[in-house]
């Protein structure tokens, strides 16, 4: 059962990921990305990360990607022209990536014994309660710092947006 779910959603994720890269129109890429995120959220549930799964949907799909789609709609620039890429990218990029995937797959396969199996419910500590305890316990300082980061980000966004007004 777990395997079935995993395979299904892994395929979905990869498919959407590919279409993120291949779609010419930003909106399509954005929606495919949302698809990836949804699939990942399900996989998180499979891995017992309820809170993270929900946060994934709320934050990524619900907030960040909506922002993206917003901007895309506002600018409403059509699909991109496929032309002129830097030589290095063309020559080295693809083989490098292929090599990357292959090698890392091999590394993982050989370094993680087959015994390490993932079952649904195999990890029950991902509830909002335990995550919260962790965040407000050992990780309190980083958490506060990120809040500062967010504040800075907000200010920056406001400033940038204000600039275009006048």
């Amino acid at each position, binding site marked *: 059962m777990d395997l079935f779910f*995993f395979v299904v959603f892994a395929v979905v994720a990869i498919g959407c990921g590919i279409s*993120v*890269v291949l779609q010419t129109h*930003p909106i399509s890429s954005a929606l495919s990305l949302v698809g990836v995120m949804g699939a990942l959220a399900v996989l998180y549930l499979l*891995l017992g990360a309820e809170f993270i799964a929900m946060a994934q949907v709320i934050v990524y799909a619900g907030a*960040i990607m909506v922002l993206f789609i917003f901007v895309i709609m506002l600018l409403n620039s059509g699909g991109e022209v496929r032309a002129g*890429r830097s030589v290095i990218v063309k020559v080295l990029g693809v083989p490098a990536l292929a090599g990357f995937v292959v090698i890392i797959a091999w590394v993982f396969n050989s370094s993680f014994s087959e015994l*390490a199996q993932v*079952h649904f419910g195999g990890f029950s500590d991902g509830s909002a309660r335990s995550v919260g305890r962790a965040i407000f316990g050992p990780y309190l300082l980083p958490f506060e710092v990120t809040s500062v980061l967010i504040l800075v980000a907000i200010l920056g*966004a406001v400033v940038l947006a204000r600039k275009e007004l006048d």
Partner: protein
Amino acid sequence: MLQGGGVPLSWVLILSAILFSLGVAGFLFRKNIITVFMSIELMLNAVNLSFVAFSYKLQQVNGHIFAFFVMVVAAAEAAVGLAIILTVFKNRSSLDIDDVSEMKN
């Protein structure tokens, strides 16, 4: 090899690797700033997946925390980055990443 219909952890990690390299590919091959940006988000997601997978492997919640922080950072990044993209588009009505090359002599 797959007793009990379980999923080998390595598969999850490989999935995250594939997604990551897809993100890299997008970053390399796309010219539209927004798409490039989205590819970065894709990479972040892939990393999150491996975080969560490892915290399943280690039976600790810490990985989740890292994923959480990654999301927060991604949110901040998206806010600022999109604002920048907006201004860029205002200044030179184009989203082609190669047009933004004043710094290049």
